[in-house]
């Protein structure tokens, strides 16, 4: 299939898009920003005769906050996220992670919904959503499903999204203090690289400030899907923080990973580097609290 043989359907509204999908979900493939889809079409890892181009649906491009809930329309681009005053004040982690996704030319086109649908295990946009315990909203012509992000990803490049559904929204609770969540990625160069390992950590400080009363640790690129390091979280919850404790937590997280060896790194290397990247992330959270509380 050459690009010239593919037809493109461009619905005007979400409703139209969903009814097109309902009628021919077996033969049409949605495309948003296209930064992954067009590459897959060129490389023929994706074959289709028809594309449903939803990139023009303005109704799915918004970033809102209502009370403590932040809602991001699925067609928001990573540039929209990086520039959003709402996200810069209510979830810096997602902004920082978005800055590391590709480069400016890609951030201007790539959408958060497209990133989720593409389900790359190394996608830098995804671990922050695990750390935020985000909800993915999907719709078909009949109705809406709200899926916790952890249940949305089923296996390597497999999601719970059905062929007649579109991702419409990503929502989560705003981070109370903007610096109580952080994202770090490790790669082979400074810009424009695919993560060897990445980590997103969300915390709530215990009142006395010596431990976390709650914590979520998400690790990317170390398993077929992003994972929550739940044993590591349990170990750190309400435990007084110290060098040894943080290193030990990293060892536990490493034990929870199931990385593969590929062209970028060996499984052994990935497992070995997890404690270091977690150490760095936790210390960054501790440092931000000190900065935050400095009068």
């Amino acid at each position, binding site marked *: 299939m050459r690009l010239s043989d593919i*037809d493109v359907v461009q619905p005007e509204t979400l409703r139209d898009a969903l009814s097109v999908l309902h009628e021919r979900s077996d033969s049409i493939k949605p495309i948003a920003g296209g930064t992954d889809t067009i*590459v897959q079409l060129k490389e023929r890892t994706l074959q289709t005769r028809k594309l449903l181009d939803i990139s023009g649906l303005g109704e799915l491009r918004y970033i809102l906050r209502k009370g403590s809930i932040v809602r991001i329309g699925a067609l928001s681009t990573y540039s929209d996220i990086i520039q959003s005053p709402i996200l810069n004040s209510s979830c810096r982690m997602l902004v920082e992670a978005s800055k590391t996704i590709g480069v*400016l030319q890609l951030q201007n086109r790539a959408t958060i919904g497209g990133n989720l649908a593409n389900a790359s295990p190394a996608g830098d946009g995804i671990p922050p959503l695990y750390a935020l315990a985000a909800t993915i909203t999907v719709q078909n012509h009949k109705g809406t499903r709200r899926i916790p992000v952890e249940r949305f990803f089923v296996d390597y490049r497999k999601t719970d999204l059905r062929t007649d559904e579109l991702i419409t929204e990503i929502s989560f609770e705003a981070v109370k203090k903007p610096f109580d969540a952080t994202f770090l990625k490790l790669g082979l160069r400074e810009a424009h690289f695919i993560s060897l390992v990445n980590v997103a950590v969300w915390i709530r400080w215990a009142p006395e400030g010596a431990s976390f009363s709650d914590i979520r640790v998400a690790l990317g690129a170390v398993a077929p899907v992003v994972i929550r390091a739940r044993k590591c979280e349990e170990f750190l919850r309400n435990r007084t923080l110290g060098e040894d404790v943080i290193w030990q937590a990293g060892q536990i997280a490493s034990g929870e990973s199931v990385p593969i060896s590929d062209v970028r790194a060996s499984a052994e290397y990935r497992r070995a580097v997890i404690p270091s990247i977690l150490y760095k992330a936790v210390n960054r959270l501790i440092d931000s609290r000190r900065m935050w509380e400095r009068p």
Partner: protein
Amino acid sequence: MERRFSFKLNGREVSVSTPPAYTLLEILREKLDVTGPKEDCGKGECGACTVLMNGKPVLSCLVLISQAQGAEIVTSEGFMRDGFPDYVQKAFVDNGAVQCGHCIPGFIVSTEALLSRSPNPSLADIKTALAGNLCRCTGYASIIRAVEDAARKK
């Protein structure tokens, strides 16, 4: 399966009849004879096909022509002033930032976009803005000097 698409290219309205899933880059080069943007990798790694779409740098090899319907597209050619290089293009020449020249149209577009949103960019701003453009000749030092020079002369 041809359809007609219209958009603004370097300040003038253009209209082409084409299959809808051709890339914007293919249309620019093959149908409209605008050959500044180049296809090198074809998958979003090199930046040689960078153009402005509605004021923002994007990769024209990863935009379908149907997605460019009604958009405003500017290529490196669009920044020329009466057929002569503008201040950014001149700064690239003056600073020896061009060797084989293949990647330069992409660098020009990324630089123009940077300087229009941030007239006095820091070194870090310049590196971030150009991170999506690869050059295999210069080692980037002369390109960065050219951008700094252009910023001073703006």
